[in-house]
Structure formats: structure tokens, C-alpha cells
């Protein structure tokens, strides 16, 4: 898109406050020692200096979403009949997601293939997706745990965003990437600044130059798949894992859910909540059988899904955007980069061994 505008840093808060009338504005704010995406309120401030602790995915996939509410009623006289009334609760209203990082925005497209695909359209997801405008802030550099460059992204990637902000002194150059973005940028908070386009591009190029040359995790679907039967490898990989859900819940691309009915007396609601493949209950069957009984099985699934199964189903796009939250927030500092690199190496070694057979 052609237009570029300038957004002063100090104009952001008043602008978001103003937008709050029309949109549900979600922005990164401090919460204790962490930074979380939540509804913008001026007194909470906004934290754009570092990657948020929680990903932005809750804008499209809330941690807990009511699918419908229900009430049962029983007639007073014989024959006592019970009937049930349902009330669907489709999401309404426009959403503005402000201050996502390129990795988080990119993750939204990973959801799209699943929830807004050719065959299946999830009404709750698509309602939110269509109502959401995503304003992404390009990163000014990579943190120690970042690896977007190794999974097909970059610190300035605009995939999945409606507006891309590039940091300059005292503010941001905003460039619209979609119709929705154009619409948003008509607001008076944005100053005309077509002349700054080149400068923004220069800044982004400088940021890109700083990205180190590293081995990519793309195109490893087959290699990883070849390790499926090698449980010894996964045992070793997962030995320190505590089987908690910090990695999955903080992952911007994890989209698995659980559906439960939560009754209160004669009424209640059916809710969809984030689920966690690192928990043994994730695959526990009604019979008591569990096809993924150990943490090794579950680790194999987590890594396999992100770097092999998903890309095989969806034109080689990895289901990992390299934000590094799973590394920095893991209680045992499990490093998925090492795990994937080891797996690739191990698969290659196995292949060589078989070649000699």
C-alpha cells in the first residue's frame, strides 16, 4: 500500500482511548512484573519496549470463550418434562489489536488455515477475525530467545498485520497493508508523512542487517517425521520437562482447545478453553487408555506438530513463529531451538546409518 503516516509516541494513549468507544482495544500493558495484552485503559499505560509475556492470540482465541448459555426447565405437573433452551453467544463488536510484534501477527495466519479454512469455518473465530484490525510494531532488534528468522519470519515482517509501525525518534511511521489498515489510518492522530517511507524502510533494513546468519528450521518436515518411532530420542529430549502448560499457553500459535459444560444449578454455559498438549489429560481417552502416556510422547507431538505435521498440511508453513516465549518462560529453560536442531541432526545421522545398511 502506498500511504505512510506518522504517529507520535505521545499521541498513542489518547488515540487508543478515543478508539475505545468504537473498538475493544487490546494493548500490551504491565501487570505485576509481566506484560500482558488486555483492554486498554489510560491508567494502565502501555508497554511497547519489550515482547509481551502473553501472546496476542487471545484477541482471536480467548483463553475462555462462551459458545452458548443454556437453561433447563421442568414442568410442574405430570408428566414432568425437561426442556432446554439455548442462547448462542457469538462475539460482537470491532477489535483493535495494538502493539503486537511481527511474530504474533504472523501467528494469526497460522490460525486462519485452521479456523477460517476452505473446509471448516469456525463462526466464533471468523467473527473475531473479521472484526479485528491488527497494528503491529516492528521490533528494533532480537532478544536472546528470539528466532523468527529461523522459522520464516523476521523482526520487521508484516505478514498478518493491517498496519505496520516502524519506530523512529519520538514516534512511529505507520504503513497500511490492508483496507482495514487504510481505514484506521484516516484518523487524525496520524500525520501525513509520505516522505518518511524511505526512512522507515532504511530503519527496517538496518534491523534486518543485524539478524545473524543461522540455520533455518524450514523444510524439515520429513526429517522430523523419520524420528517418530525413535522414542529413545524423545525420552532424552523431554527428560527435564515438567509437563506443565507454560509453553503452550504462552505460544502465539498453539490453538488447541477443550470444550466443557459448566453448569450452575439448572443453567450454565458451554465454554471453549485453551488446552495443552503437554498435559497427559490432553489425549486421555474415556476408556482410560492414553495414546501419549509419557512426556516424551507429548514432546514429540509438540515439536512434531509445529515443525512437521502442520507444515505438511499447510504449504510448508511452520506452526512456530520464533517468539521464544516458550524458552524464556519455561520453568526449566527448555530450549525448543536446541531440541529441533538436535532432532534434525539426529534424523540426518539415522538416515546416514540406514544408507550404510
Amino acid at each position: 500500500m502506498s500511504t505512510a503516516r506518522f504517529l507520535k509516541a505521545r499521541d498513542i494513549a489518547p488515540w487508543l482511548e478515543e478508539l475505545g468507544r468504537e473498538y475493544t482495544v487490546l494493548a500490551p500493558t504491565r501487570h505485576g512484573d509481566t506484560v500482558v495484552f488486555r483492554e486498554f485503559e489510560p491508567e494502565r499505560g502501555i508497554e511497547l519496549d519489550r515482547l509481551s509475556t502473553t501472546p496476542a492470540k487471545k484477541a482471536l482465541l480467548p483463553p475462555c470463550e462462551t459458545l452458548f448459555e443454556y437453561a433447563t426447565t421442568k414442568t410442574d405437573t405430570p408428566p414432568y418434562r425437561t426442556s432446554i433452551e439455548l442462547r448462542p453467544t457469538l462475539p460482537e463488536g470491532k477489535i483493535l489489536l495494538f502493539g503486537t510484534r511481527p511474530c504474533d501477527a504472523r501467528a494469526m495466519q497460522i490460525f486462519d488455515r485452521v479456523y477460517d479454512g476452505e473446509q471448516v469455518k469456525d463462526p466464533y473465530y471468523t467473527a473475531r477475525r473479521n472484526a479485528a484490525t491488527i497494528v503491529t510494531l516492528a521490533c528494533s532488534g532480537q532478544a536472546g530467545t528470539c528466532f523468527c528468522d529461523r522459522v520464516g519470519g523476521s523482526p520487521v515482517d508484516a505478514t498478518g498485520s493491517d498496519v505496520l509501525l516502524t519506530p523512529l525518534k519520538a514516534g512511529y511511521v505507520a504503513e497500511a497493508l490492508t483496507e482495514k489498515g487504510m481505514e484506521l489510518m484516516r484518523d487524525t492522530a496520524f500525520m501525513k508523512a509520505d516522505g518518511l517511507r524511505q526512512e522507515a524502510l532504511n530503519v527496517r533494513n538496518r534491523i534486518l542487517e543485524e539478524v545473524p546468519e543461522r540455520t533455518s528450521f524450514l523444510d524439515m518436515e520429513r526429517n522430523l517425521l523419520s524420528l517418530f518411532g525413535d522414542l529413545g530420542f524423545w525420552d532424552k529430549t523431554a527428560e527435564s520437562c515438567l509437563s506443565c502448560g507454560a509453553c503452550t499457553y504462552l505460544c502465539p500459535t498453539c490453538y488447541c482447545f477443550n470444550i466443557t459444560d459448566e453448569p450452575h444449578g439448572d443453567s450454565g454455559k458451554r465454554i471453549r478453553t485453551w488446552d495443552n498438549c503437554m498435559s497427559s489429560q490432553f489425549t486421555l481417552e474415556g476408556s482410560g487408555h492414553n495414546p501419549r502416556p509419557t512426556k516424551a510422547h507429548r514432546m514429540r507431538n509438540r515439536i512434531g506438530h509445529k515443525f512437521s505435521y502442520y507444515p505438511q498440511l499447510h504449504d510448508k508453513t511452520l506452526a512456530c513463529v520464533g517468539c521464544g516465549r516458550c524458552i524464556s518462560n519455561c520453568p526449566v529453560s527448555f530450549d525448543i531451538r536446541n531440541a529441533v536442531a538436535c532432532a534434525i541432526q539426529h534424523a540426518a545421522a539415522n538416515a546416514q546409518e540406514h544408507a550404510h545398511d
Partner: protein
Amino acid sequence: MPVLEGKELRIVGFLCNWCSYGGADTAGVGRFAQPTDLRIIKLPCTGRVNPLFVVRAFLNGADGVLVSGCHPGDCHYTAGNFYARRRLEILRELLDVMGIQQERFHYTWVSASEGQKWKQVVSDFTARIHDLGPAAAFSGCPAVPIDMDETGIKAAG
């Protein structure tokens, strides 16, 4: 049963089958007038009272919780209330740490013959809870079952 606005509070009672439930029955048979706020849940023994029953009751919106069992030494199962006593003491402390006023929780011993005492326990505890007023609730967490009239769901005719 409907909660009478401003007249009743939610008080949950966990009573052992052998002593206190009998005591409550005795009070009833003796036609001792008592406040009606208490909802009794009968258990085999106070040893069956998982302290989490009490926490769950409070978090679900109870304004007071009363546990009552056999006097120490009189437990139908010999030692149930001895274990309960320790657990409930620790529970009292946990409630305080969680920010639930300790005074909203009480445990006591009432035997099956003590109808008069039961009446006293219920009256005193109910009065205490009324003095304290309704318990604090989490914002966004309804203490009552969702009122379907408000949600717009029509009762099936």
C-alpha cells in the same frame, strides 16, 4: 430455595450423620425455633469434610460455613473428628491467608441429644454472619446461579 433478599444469607452446614445431624433433628422434633439461613449437607463424619468443601462453598458465594460433628472422643468411627479438628484448624488459617474472614467459618461439636445446643449454635452463628453481612465476591463471578430472566432466555412453556 430462594434467598430472601436482605433477610437471609447463605450459610452452609456440613454435619456428621451420627451426632450433629441427629442433634439438628432433635432440635426440630423439639420445635426449637431457629433461623432458616442454614443449608445442611449431611456427611458420614466430620472426617469426611474435605477442607476444600468449605473453600469451594465460600468461593461459590457462601457467606458462612459451619461444620459440626461428634464431640472429641465420641466419634462413631473413633478418630474421624480428631483428624478433622487438625484439618479445620489449618483451614481456618488458610481462609485468613486467602482473604476470607475467619469469622465466617466455625466448627463445633453437637451430639444427637443436644437439640437445645444445636439451636444455640445455629442462632449464634447466623447472628454472627448477619453482623458480618454478605461475603466479598470476585468481580465478574456471580455468586448466584445465572438468572435466566436477565440473560434473556425464556423458560420453556
